[in-house]
């Protein structure tokens, strides 16, 4: 560990990782009936993590360098560091983890399956997500990326039913094939370059001429590997099935964990490994943008015909996450801002929608859109949150989704790719076509009389720990749009990131 001393700044990323890794380990050891211990560990870890992330955000603003380096092999290090991009992802996952933990505690209160196991893997899953966010080189990224696959499998199959086992099998097949392809890409790049550190502006600039062919193949391998998790069509098959997982898992999977890890990886490869200018020079951006555009439209079209609410949301994720890849595939800082800010915006909106879907299912037994008539009268708060999420997805101003789409559109025009405008418009229309009928049913149709399975919920329309998280995230999605120009807003961070990526 030459040149590496133990200071607070050097340990901060590691500490943030440990705030969920340590609770995970302890929770595994706790006997099933120690509910109070488990809950305190979960919430304590989440709060501590949020506090540390707050310190990190403040520090990065004030030009502190936070970096943990552990030697692994000769010239391979485990690097956790805080650049502008990782701070954004870390903050998102820290915040959403806290809310999802609250939600999950209430959601699983009556579950017959082992909760020690659930919360253990749940914390492990968040550790991997934070590790992915803070990874300072491709190898560290790869490690946490695979750890994420492993820690989500037990969550997906948590219920142990035939259907969830089947979903788990498909999930494993897709993600491990993707992982193997990605590993090959990373190993190849490492053998070619000797270093795979993430560098703002890219680390490839000097090698384009000599290795253009190989670099193109490596790019294809890495994007294909990451595309499995990011659910790029045709690699998306696992995602709609994986929604059989319990609601908090789906929420996390779709908003910050698995899908977002894939999208984040694509962003990292494009900006910090290859560099956007190198990608442009190698002609890699057009194929990527075509894949993303196709996915956007295809996901929306498939969402139209789903009656099961969670399945419709799942196809909507397929579509929405590709906005991030699309932003990365347009050469120009404005589109970059649009893509990166959507990392956060999509997370906030989609987690709201999944929380709400979980509330409908848990409180009233409503799983299908056709059963949702008049649900807004029974559960007004949940339905309001759902509405904010859905309108945001469509891109109605001044919600968060509008900001992303606006920047993507302007960015496409600035880069001279007007066909992307057509994709954005088509996608927004499709978004409206599959979300507005749900809203209409919920608010304006007459209820059918009785709900499928209604459970008594006490003072509020449902358990307060189920209600507070979606209301909070809906509020955040609203504020991210309304206050987009204020300091510390997601948009402002995205601008900071874009400015650094395009610096000469």
């Amino acid at each position, binding site marked *: 560990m030459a040149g590496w001393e133990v200071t607070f700044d050097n340990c901060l990323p590691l500490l943030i990782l440990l705030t969920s890794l340590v609770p995970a380990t302890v929770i*595994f050891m706790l006997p099933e009936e120690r509910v109070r211990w488990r809950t305190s560990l979960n919430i304590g870890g989440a709060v501590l993590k949020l506090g540390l992330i707050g310190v990190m955000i403040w520090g990065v603003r004030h030009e502190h360098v936070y970096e943990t380096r*552990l*030697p*692994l*092999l*000769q010239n*391979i290090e*485990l690097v956790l560091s805080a650049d502008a991009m990782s701070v954004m992802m870390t903050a998102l996952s820290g915040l959403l983890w806290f809310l999802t933990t609250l939600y999950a505690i209430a959601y699983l209160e009556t579950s017959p*399956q*082992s909760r*020690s*196991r659930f919360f253990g893997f749940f914390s492990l899953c968040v550790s991997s997500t934070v590790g992915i966010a803070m990874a300072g080189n491709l*190898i560290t990224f*790869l*490690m*946490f990326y*695979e*750890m994420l*696959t*492993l820690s989500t*499998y*037990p969550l997906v*199959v948590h*219920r*142990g*039913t*035939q259907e969830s*086992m089947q979903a*788990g*099998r498909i999930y*494993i097949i897709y993600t*491990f*094939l993707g*992982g*193997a*392809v990605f*590993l*090959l890409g990373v*190993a*190849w790049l*490492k*053998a070619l370059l000797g270093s795979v550190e993430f560098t703002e502006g890219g680390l490839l600039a000097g090698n384009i001429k000599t290795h253009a062919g190989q670099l193109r193949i490596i790019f294809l391998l890495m994007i294909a590997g990451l595309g499995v998790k990011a659910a790029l069509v045709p690699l998306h098959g696992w995602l709609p099935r994986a929604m059989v997982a319990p609601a908090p898992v789906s929420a996390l999977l779709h908003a910050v964990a698995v899908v977002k890890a894939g999208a984040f990886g694509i962003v990292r490869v494009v900006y910090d490994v290859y560099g956007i200018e190198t990608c442009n020079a190698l002609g890699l951006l057009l194929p990527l943008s075509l894949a993303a555009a196709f996915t956007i439209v295809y996901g929306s079209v498939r969402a139209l015909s789903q009656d099961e609410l969670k399945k419709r949301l799942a196809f909507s994720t397929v579509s929405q996450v590709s906005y991030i890849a699309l932003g990365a595939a347009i050469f120009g800082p404005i589109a970059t801002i649009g893509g990166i800010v959507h990392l956060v915006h999509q997370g906030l909106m989609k987690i709201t929608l999944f929380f709400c879907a979980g509330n409908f299912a848990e409180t009233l037994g409503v799983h299908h859109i056709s059963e949702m008539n008049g649900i807004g009268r029974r559960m007004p708060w949940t339905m309001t949150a759902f509405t904010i999420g859905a309108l945001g997805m469509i891109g109605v101003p001044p919600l968060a989704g509008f900001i992303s789409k606006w920047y993507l559109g302007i960015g496409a025009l600035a880069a001279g790719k007007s066909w992307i405008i057509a994709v954005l418009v088509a996608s927004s229309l499709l978004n409206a076509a599959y979300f507005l009928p749900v809203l209409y049913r919920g608010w304006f149709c007459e209820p059918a009389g009785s709900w499928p399975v209604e459970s008594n919920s006490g003072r509020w329309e449902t358990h307060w720990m189920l209600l507070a998280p979606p209301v909070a995230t809906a509020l955040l999605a609203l504020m991210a749009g309304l206050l987009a120009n204020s300091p510390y807003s997601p948009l402002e961070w995205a601008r900071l990131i874009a400015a650094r990526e395009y610096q000469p």
Partner: protein
Amino acid sequence: MTLPAWIVALPLLAAALMTAVPRSRLLMVGSAAILTPALVAFLARTILRDGVLQMQLGGWQTPLGIQLRADGLSVAMLGITAVIMGVITLYAWAYFRDHESSRYFWVLWMFLWAALNALFLSADIFNLYVTLELLGLSAVALVALPQKAAALTAAMRYLLVSLSGSLSYLMGVALLYAANGTLNIEMLANTAQASPATSAAFAMIAGGLIMKSALLPLHFWLPPAHANAPAPVSAVLSALVVKASFYIMLRLWLTLFGALTSPSIAQILGVMAAMAVIWGSIQALLADRLKMMVAYSTVAQIGYLFLIFPLSQLAQGSQEALQGGMYFLFSHACAKAAVFLAAGTVIYACGHDRIDGLAGIVRQMPVSMFAFALAGTSLIGLPPSGGFIAKWLYLNAALRNGQWWWCALLLGGGLLATAYIFRFFSIAFSNREEIVSARPVPKMMEWPALGLAVCAISLGLVAPAVKKLLGVGGLF
């Protein structure tokens, strides 16, 4: 410095004393299991400070006396042996608690440990033969311990293979001795020339060792022997005993044969390795008993070990290949021991190990299944396990010396391993009606498996220290 001699003598002494005074068994087993690893740690510290350590037994000089030699490779092997034997000893104590055969078990167990230690410290090819034979005999006796038909048949077959393997090796030794007039490995390295006699010796030696290491197509004896032995024995057979003959092969290759044989030999070994990976994994995927699955997984993983020969052939990338191979050895040793112990616990609790009959086992035995899963991660080669580090090093070696076709094997093998591990887990997690009923298991059987699995995972984090140790003696 008599340290190496003590490392060999200690388990032997314990065996002798507990035969003489049966009531001292706990004391003897306990002190051997604690002191031997301590001595190995001390030896590691010594050679890291002073370099390679040699000693002459009885004071006779090299060509005549028995020489013990401890370089980085030897001590690393002694170290992994100490860790695994030490942890399994805990498990075995609970496993054999009320068994009538425990009397024989502990004597044989200490005998096996001494044979392994002696083998790793031997400096000449004839001593290697003697230790190899001792190791084989104690292993066969341990397999036969349950005295059931299946175990006896498997042990018989294992005995025949073991004897013919040693015999073939011995003939190779005789040829080398006739041509060079010495048995000492270092002296042989200086005098041996490429000649028909050397080639024939290599063929004999390699054939015998491959048979003992169960590289395909000479693997047929391994699955029944490893699957029918008592759990602690299965664990040590797969983790260490097959590695011992591989170790001899590697050492002779690095000092002697690597430079004297034609390059195509390494490629042929590579092809056999590839077949082992594929065939072993497929058989593991088809196995209907848990221990059979694990045993076939060993057949597959032995293949990865032998990839060291083609991958280290060219100077470019050979460093990575050698380290990768050793990492495979260490991480497989920990992971496979953990998996066999967990499988043994399953049999102890449920009375059988038919995979189909284990639905919902995750809920019944969370600790053992967690150990199984962690170790499985290493067998598949997922980060951050030692198995991943090994695979990463191999991939780098293959890409750097242009043998990219091995990449396909490494990745494909990983996917096949995923398939057989998760095939088990998709049943273990499932919630079907006929959930398995399990009787309570002593904690001392659950935690050692988890401990070894954690070792397999965290091996990735101690890589710099391992590399430094292996570097002593200049082979790596």
